[in-house]
């Protein structure tokens, strides 16, 4: 069959097709899509930058309220650094929606640059995101331990427990980021490099066949789709951990029970009733949530998150998410209620003060006798 004949048939078919479209609806769809994108960007910025900005005055208020040591305030420059870093990075490397009017190769190169930047960001997450708060927290723990125990051994012992907790949390965060680089970003970069090489230069037919399977990698680097997918993956993760109301019951019932136990049991070093109840509830909540996360991880082993299965949080997952936010709020409230009490605990109580006052004249007389 001659290719010229195919070309003729191709062109003839084009002339027999007519497309009609609703321009007004098209405009509305584009507007809705742009609004949705702006909304995603706004939510992301609020989540990542806004939370840090809210934390700064809150941190100062907490420090003043509880008469904290000066090392407590080291976290403020750290929060400012993280916010500043994110804002500058967003400005220099904005995640814009793709520009489809560009030549294909140009679009591919832009996608590659975006992926490479994401890889750089996550590879260096320790230096710009994890290390600064770790230094600030470490300084505060050591300082407060030293002030309390006034011995190196005591300070080290008191710092060890929070240090271990922070270490494991950091290890988890770092591992998640590096896994994302290895499992998602690096293969995507390799695919893009292959596509670009394929378009730019000479390559064998075997290489060309490989291209069939990797075109979808482009989709991952589109700013709009990347953000939508990130949200979808977050939803999928939560839905895997809390797939039904049974898991909600697993979390809620022990959390309420532990809050009640904290309320009933009188354990003075743990603070006031509010602090004891919320502390117990938060502890149990986190333990069960991590346990369910581990179970979900085991259950879905070998099934990577794609963001394609579920794009929205299911109702049980939303419930637990709301409960988590409520507990965070209650923890702050409890902290503020408990702070004056702690200050009082650190000072001598009224009876002790009275006895000191009573002893004071006798001591003065003793001094007079000694002088005479």
């Amino acid at each position: 069959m001659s290719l010229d004949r195919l070309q003729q048939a191709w062109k003839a078919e084009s002339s027999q097709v007519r497309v009609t479209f609703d321009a007004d609806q098209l405009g509305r769809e584009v507007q809705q899509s742009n609004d949705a994108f702006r909304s995603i960007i706004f939510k992301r910025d609020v989540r990542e930058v806004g939370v840090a900005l809210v934390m700064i005055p809150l941190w100062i208020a907490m420090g003043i309220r509880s008469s904290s040591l000066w090392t407590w305030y080291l976290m403020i420059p750290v929060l400012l650094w993280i916010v500043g870093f994110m804002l500058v990075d967003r400005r220099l490397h904005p995640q814009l929606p793709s520009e489809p009017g560009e030549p294909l190769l140009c679009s591919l190169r832009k996608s590659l640059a975006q992926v490479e930047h994401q890889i750089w960001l996550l590879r260096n997450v320790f230096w710009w995101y994890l290390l600064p708060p770790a230094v600030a927290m470490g300084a505060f723990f050591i300082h407060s331990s030293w002030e309390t125990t006034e011995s190196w051994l005591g300070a080290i012992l008191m710092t060890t427990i929070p240090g271990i907790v922070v270490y494991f949390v950091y290890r988890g965060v770092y591992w998640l980021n590096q896994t994302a680089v290895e499992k998602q970003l690096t293969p995507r970069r390799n695919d893009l490099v292959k596509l670009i090489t394929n378009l730019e230069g000479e390559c064998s037919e075997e290489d060309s066949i490989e291209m069939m399977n990797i075109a979808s990698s482009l989709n991952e680097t589109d700013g709009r789709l990347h953000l939508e997918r990130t949200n979808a993956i977050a939803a999928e993760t939560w839905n895997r951990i809390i797939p039904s109301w049974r898991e909600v019951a697993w979390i809620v019932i022990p959390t309420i029970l532990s809050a009640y136990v904290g309320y009933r049991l009188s354990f003075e070093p743990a603070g006031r009733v509010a602090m004891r109840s919320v502390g117990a509830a938060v502890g149990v909540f986190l333990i069960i949530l991590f346990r369910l996360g581990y179970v979900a991880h085991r259950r879905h082993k070998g099934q990577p998150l794609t963001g394609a299965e579920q794009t929205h949080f299911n109702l049980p997952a939303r419930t637990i998410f709301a409960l988590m936010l409520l507990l965070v709020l209650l923890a702050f409230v409890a902290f503020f209620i408990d702070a004056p009490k702690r200050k009082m605990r650190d000072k001598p109580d009224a009876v002790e003060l009275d006895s000191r006052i009573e002893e004071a004249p006798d001591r003065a007389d003793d001094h007079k006798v000694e002088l005479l």
Partner: protein
Amino acid sequence: MLEEDPKAIFTRWLEEHSSSVLKVARAYTLTKEDCQDLAQEILLQAWRSLPKFAGKASPATWFYRVALNTAMNWHRNDRPRRQFQRPLLEVQTLVTNSDDSCRQVEQQELVERLYAAIHQLPCTEVALVLLYLDDMSYSEMANVLGISESNVGVRLNRAKKVLATLFDAEPVEGEADES
């Protein structure tokens, strides 16, 4: 950049180049639903990027760029996001007189086989073949894809050979029954 009403420009351009949108959509999808879905996505992307059209390329080149970039970015996994969209476009096949109808059917069969062969090509080669079938010059193809004209020549020759082989390997409708 565009002094005329964008809606009017878009409507006019789409009348002229709607077939390229449909061809790209069909070449990069396997089912009718996916084809409709991708065609709608191309329209949305074209409308979205119309204000940024600088006039450096011809509308035909620009439409092809948008269509091919969207097709390569398009992913079936995004369907949940789009399933609530109302249909944006309607495709009509024009009816010809009875003398031509026989030839039309024959051509349609030929085009069907051609699409079947195109579906077996690598995605970057599909782009080249579509541009070739639409009778674009090497310069226009290079402009759409962002590669050099010499590269277009080398790649197109290879793609044409592969296409011819695949096309010949495609069974003609009715042939299998006869044998």
